[in-house]
């Protein structure tokens, strides 16, 4: 177990540096000069441009910029945006909102997704199974921004239960609808994955053994079937928490949630390099930590991994 953890942590290190470097390269070497863009249509004074570039190390070779950035990062400094505000400040305001939104979406997709998956997986071919399949297929096919509009139209415009956009991003109750929209796609995946996994395990030999042992049905389902079936689902759920935060960009935009997605979207549009890199770096860290935790959880749940 110890060596397994160590190996996983060691594997994470190159991936962390690789991913951040990749983001760095994408943001800073692609065509489009962020500093000139800062001035908009006005012709910029070359001297001012040069001084800004110097200040943000943009006149240095890329690898130096990257090393400098990483050096600061390990001291907790995410750099300064072109507007002069520390990136960590910008993130501190927005991340809590997105984390709440993502957690809400996560709880929603987990509870409902697992429930639907079990409902259909345990009764294959039944009406509820077909219903779950059709429903999830629809959710998967309808792009999230369309789904967001449908939700807005139905729940805000027609039913009047909520306001179309979020007024106070720190009010958890207002985040419910955006969270449901955000989590719906993953919910469909969780439900289908659970169903498939249950279907596979129902045929497993050990299930036949469990029946032959004369165990009550409840014990067979809960202890033998679900325990095994949920392993892949939990793996998916773990990595999905990070994906939800990255995917918040559309949902936050439509519902006007003042979270990380909104900030990031604006930063990309204005070529705010430091902000983009800072936010994506944090997202990558979240993703990596989540996958590490998932792998560890996987090892806890499946002894075949633990002792491999």
């Amino acid at each position: 177990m110890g060596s397994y953890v160590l190996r996983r942590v060691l594997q994470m290190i190159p991936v962390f540096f690789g991913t951040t470097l990749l983001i760095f390269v994408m943001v800073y070497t692609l065509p489009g000069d962020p500093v000139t863009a800062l001035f908009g249509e006005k012709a910029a004074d070359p001297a001012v441009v040069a001084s800004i570039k110097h200040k943000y190390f943009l006149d240095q070779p890329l690898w130096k910029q990257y090393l400098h950035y990483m050096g600061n990062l390990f001291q907790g400094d995410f750099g300064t945006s072109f507007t002069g505000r520390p990136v960590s400040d910008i993130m501190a305001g927005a991340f809590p909102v997105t984390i709440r939104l993502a957690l809400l979406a996560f709880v929603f997709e987990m509870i409902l997704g697992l429930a639907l998956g079990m409902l259909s997986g345990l009764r294959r071919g039944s009406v509820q199974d077909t219903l779950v399949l059709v429903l999830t297929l629809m959710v998967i096919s309808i792009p999230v921004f369309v789904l967001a509009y449908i939700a807005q139209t139905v729940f805000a415009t027609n039913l009047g239960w909520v306001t179309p956009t979020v007024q106070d991003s720190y009010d958890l109750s207002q985040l419910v609808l955006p969270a449901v929209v955000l989590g719906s796609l993953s919910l469909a995946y969780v439900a289908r994955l659970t169903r498939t996994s249950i279907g596979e395990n129902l045929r497993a030999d050990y299930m036949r053994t469990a029946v032959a042992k004369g165990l009550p049905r409840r014990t067979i389902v809960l202890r033998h079937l679900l325990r095994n079936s949920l392993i892949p689902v939990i793996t998916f759920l773990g990595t999905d928490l990070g994906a939800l935060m990255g995917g918040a960009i559309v949902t936050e935009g439509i519902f006007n949630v003042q979270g990380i997605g909104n900030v990031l979207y604006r930063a990309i549009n204005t070529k705010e390099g430091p902000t983009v890199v800072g936010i994506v770096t944090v997202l990558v860290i979240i993703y990596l930590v989540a996958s590490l935790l998932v792998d560890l959880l996987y090892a806890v749940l499946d002894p075949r991994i633990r002792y491999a």
Partner: protein
Amino acid sequence: MNTAVDRTGREAGTPYQGPLLDVRDLHVEFVTRDGVARAVNGVNYSVRAGETLAVLGESGSGKSVTAQAVMGILDMPPARIPRGEIRFRGRDMLKMGKDERRRIRGRKIAMIFQDALSALNPVLSVGFQLGEMFRAHHGVSRAEARTKAVELMERVRIPAAKERVNDYPHQFSGGMRQRIMIAMALALEPDLIIADEPTTALDVTVQAQVMDLLAELQAEYNMGLILITHDLGVVADVADKIAVMYAGRIVETAPVHELYARPAHPYTRGLLDSIPRLDQKGQELYAIKGLPPNLLRIPPGCAFNPRCPRAQDVCRAEVPELFPVAEDDGTPLEGRRSACFFWKETLHDR
């Protein structure tokens, strides 16, 4: 102590005298997309306490399906049992309620599966899986179940049982895993054990050890044993009587040594002839021609007729019943039956 079974027995006080298990005219079908596969077509057999019945046949002969029907672990659907009785201590289990049936499983009739690695739950420790028997049927505590699990593991001679009780199935060798399966079947000292190819997945050297252990424990607890196998060698050592199955029917039954010496059905004959023998080294090995029948389209008459060297018109027209087998002078051979119109001729073949 067997409260559940005392209730199932005829009347309290008079001990049940008949066979432990009595399968009568059992039919099992599978509904597939391509039609109905008739896996079992009227099987009769019985097992007494302390007796070992070997059921011999190729895969698809219905031997495992029969056993699963007895055990009550067929998936229904796609399987269904249109006809037949499975009497355990005189009571037809097919007419029992779900719960009553469940309480017999594991406690009165237990099963040993072929591939212990896939038959054991990969994510639960062997100690837990063994202890589960006591917890589910006797309601003992977790700790007590664990103690019992260690005892069982020692009973089937797993070395260092105390240390290994928390290990997982994949950490054991094939032979040790099969011992754990045996231990699980033995846990509640059932009256009948069904062993479905218990040694097929094992190395040759380990097969003997596992078989001996099984036979020894069977004798000790005076259990009935149904040994399902395709391996004539395994059968010879431990079985009292043999039932040979083909295409969902029993084609021949006989005490084990007599079957070996003088088979009364051409199929059995073919099976025995296809065993390589040291004294026939260098000669071409006999093989039964053709393929086992498709269960969706079992040939009319005797199902074996397309492959049978003896087949006549009658074999293609009529399904042979299980004829009692007798010597030429008419002295019946006890326990011997053959589903061949030409059992007499077959008996004389050599």
